[in-house]
């Protein structure tokens, strides 16, 4: 009788249910527990050249900041006439504007419903306000020391690079904040320039390079990836060339940074993917996979 009861308890199988009384302690699990363990089910396999291609957004933004600083330096030194910069900027903006519509055949414009009149109005607002405020900008930071202004500008440009929308889906990304920081930095730097025309041209250039140029880039990347790669290379080399004309050490360091971001970092990312150990199993939190919106409405 006694032996029979022992065999019956041994035969009693453990079930993962709460509604039946079972002869096991509460924290008991049997061998099948780890059968459902799975690893790396959501991990993505990266292709090296695809990652390099995606990293070009970061390269572009770094080059934009570099070009801006180089141009400002030329202006501050008096090597670059503001009229020349303004003319070049205007011409390239017009070119970019035409290109912007040509790339996708005007589809984006139809989708957003933005008229050319609105574009013209925006451009007029930019120019008018910048021109009107340029004397104020000129005298704005007279009493503040130059080092403070430089520190503030560096801080703001770093903030611009950190918060820029590189296409990642993260909470820290805020394109508004990044653009505002860039404009703040440009206004700070412009106030150090010798004349109010310089300040006006500098702020206009900042809008072109920080607001308009990324929009064109995005469209280029989406529609014609090949030409985008070419444009990026060209832009990076021109930025390097500009920096080289100021300081060779800076150019070498910048080149190293660009190479490490575009070649080393993707390589390192793919290497690190091998060490990924992401475990999933029945202990995970419940996940609602069905779309609940039909119940909510």
């Amino acid at each position, binding site marked *: 009788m006694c032996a029979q009861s022992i065999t019956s308890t041994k035969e009693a199988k453990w079930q993962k249910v709460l509604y039946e009384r079972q002869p096991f302690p509460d924290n008991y699990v049997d061998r099948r527990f780890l059968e459902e363990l799975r690893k790396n089910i959501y991990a993505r396999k990266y292709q090296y050249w695809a990652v390099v291609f995606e990293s070009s957004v970061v390269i572009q933004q770094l080059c934009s900041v570099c070009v801006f600083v180089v141009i400002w330096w030329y202006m501050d030194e008096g090597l670059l006439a503001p009229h020349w910069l303004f003319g070049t900027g205007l011409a390239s903006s017009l070119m970019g504007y035409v290109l912007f519509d040509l790339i996708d055949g005007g589809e984006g414009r139809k989708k957003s419903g933005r008229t050319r009149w609105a574009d013209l109005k925006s451009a007029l607002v930019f120019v008018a*306000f910048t021109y009107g405020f340029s004397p104020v900008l000129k*005298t*704005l930071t007279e009493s503040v020391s130059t080092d403070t202004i430089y520190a503030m500008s560096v801080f703001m440009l770093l903030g611009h690079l950190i918060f820029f929308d590189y296409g990642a889906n993260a909470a820290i990304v805020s394109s508004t904040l990044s653009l505002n920081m860039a404009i703040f930095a440009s206004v700070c730097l412009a106030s150090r320039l010798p004349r109010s025309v310089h300040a006006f041209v500098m702020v206009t250039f900042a809008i072109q390079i920080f607001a308009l140029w990324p929009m064109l880039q995005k469209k280029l990347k989406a529609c014609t990836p090949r030409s985008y790669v070419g444009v990026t290379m060209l832009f990076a080399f021109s930025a390097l060339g500009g920096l080289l004309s100021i300081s060779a050490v800076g150019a070498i360091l910048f080149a190293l940074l660009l190479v490490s971001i575009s070649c080393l970092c993707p390589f390192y990312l793919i290497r690190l993917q091998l060490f990924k150990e992401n475990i999933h199993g029945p202990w995970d939190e419940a996940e609602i996979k069905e779309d609940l919106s039909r119940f909510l409405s």
Partner: protein
Amino acid sequence: MVLKAFFPTCCASADSGLLVGRWVPEQSSAVVLAVVHFPFIPIQVKELLAQVQQASRVGMAVLGTWCHRQQEPEESLGHFLEGLGTIFSHEPWLQLCRERGSKFWSCKAIHRQVSAAPDVPSEDQVMLIFYDQRKVLLSQLHPPTVVSDHQDGDTMASTGGLAVVFDTVARSEVLFCSDQYDEGPVRLSHWQSEGVEASVLVELAKRASGPVCLLLACLLSLISAASGCRLWKLWPLPFIRSKLSTCEQLRHRLDHLTLVFSTQKAQSPAQLMRKANMLVSVLLDVALGLMLLSWLHSSNRIGQLADALVPVADHVAEELQHLLQWLMGAPAGLKMNRALDQVLGRFFLYHIHLWISYIHLMSPFIERILWHVGLSACLGLTVALSILSDIIALLTFHIYCFYVYGARLYCLKIYGLSSLWRLFRGKKWNVLRQRVDSCSYNLDQLFIGTLLFTILVFLLPTTALYYLVFTLLRLLVVTVQGLIHLLVDLVNTLPLYSLGLRLCRPYRLAAGVKFRVLEHEVGRPLRLLMQINPLPYSRVVHTYRLPSCGCHPKHSWGSLCRKLFFGELIYPWRQGGDKQD
């Protein structure tokens, strides 16, 4: 149950007779008000009691007998007194007796309960409490306002019982009007005011007060009608009137006088006290004002004052000029925006220039103006002080102007910066939900917003410094005005009559009573003497404070600092919005 018999001290030496008073069954206490002497006719006693009861609305009854043995004990008197109990039936029947020497008292309370034992009257323990009838009659009991939790119901009951005793004595004042020497049908013994005949002057004043009050009330109503005239309601006048503290003070005083000289009789003692307080306050005010007037008009002090006033105003303006020039440099090594600094400094300098020329234009007339203003001191010291406060306000008008300009500019900057900072972070203030929401802005909105934000950030220190300096100046002026207003308020609200009463007649304002043991022997009734505890001065002031003028805003320190930080204007007077609170 111990029976408490309240017995007036003035009746202790009275002849034998009947005890007349009120029986309070809740506290089982008998309040003896008077002693009726022999001989009397019971019907007449009852009639007298009915009359008093009708007049005072206090349940009067014959409580028992009083026996004062001055000579040898008479057996017949004792029997006679016992017999009286059957004529005036009362439950319980008190028998109070005083032996020859004032030492020995005896007191018995007899219940004639018909149901229990008709033949054997049961006796209670009696506590004899002596009270000074005059003091109790004149005093006014102030029950404790704050009853803390650990005090239970007994305290409340005892204060309630005391209140009943005080109330009974105060309401049966009619009884005390009859004179001891009157040849009435019933002879009474109780407290009597001495020397009614001597107070002819008081009588005369009482008689005269009616017509005088009527006349003054007519005059005052005429004045208030004139001030209520429609001509005063034309646009700028009500605004100016609400800002001048003199007008507020005059109106306040007019209200006081109207109340004091109203022909209606004061309903309650509190109201009477309030009237007296107001009258004393007005009288003191006018007396002080007349003293000031006589001081001012003796030995040409007004001329000296007027001569001193213009140089002082000039000096203040010069100091302000120096201050502005200091601000226009680089004060304390601050990073000021030079262009804005120069603009603001020149603007304020021009303002001071205007002010100085205005003062110089006014200077020939200042003496005459001061002379006429000095005359107003006969309306009272408070009016003169209010006028002084107004004159200070007028003479520091330039500081007020600077403050307003600085505050408006600063306020604009602060609000602009706070909303542009939200734009800088890509947020906006949602008015409907009262919170900060994220928002996607257009490119041109972002650009203009950030441009303005940068400019405002770099210009903020300059504006903030000007605001700070002028706010400090303004606060100085407001503090001086506030001190003057405090003084005026003190004279306005201090209950001087009550305080004088408390000083000279402490028993008139009673906070409670204390008992002193006169005799405590076994087999004899406990004899206590009730003495009145006077009200403390702080409670006198608290209870009888007159309502203040009510034209000063009540800022908490926190809200004041908040207002200063956000650049909202602070005023020494109450604003339209605050009146709703």
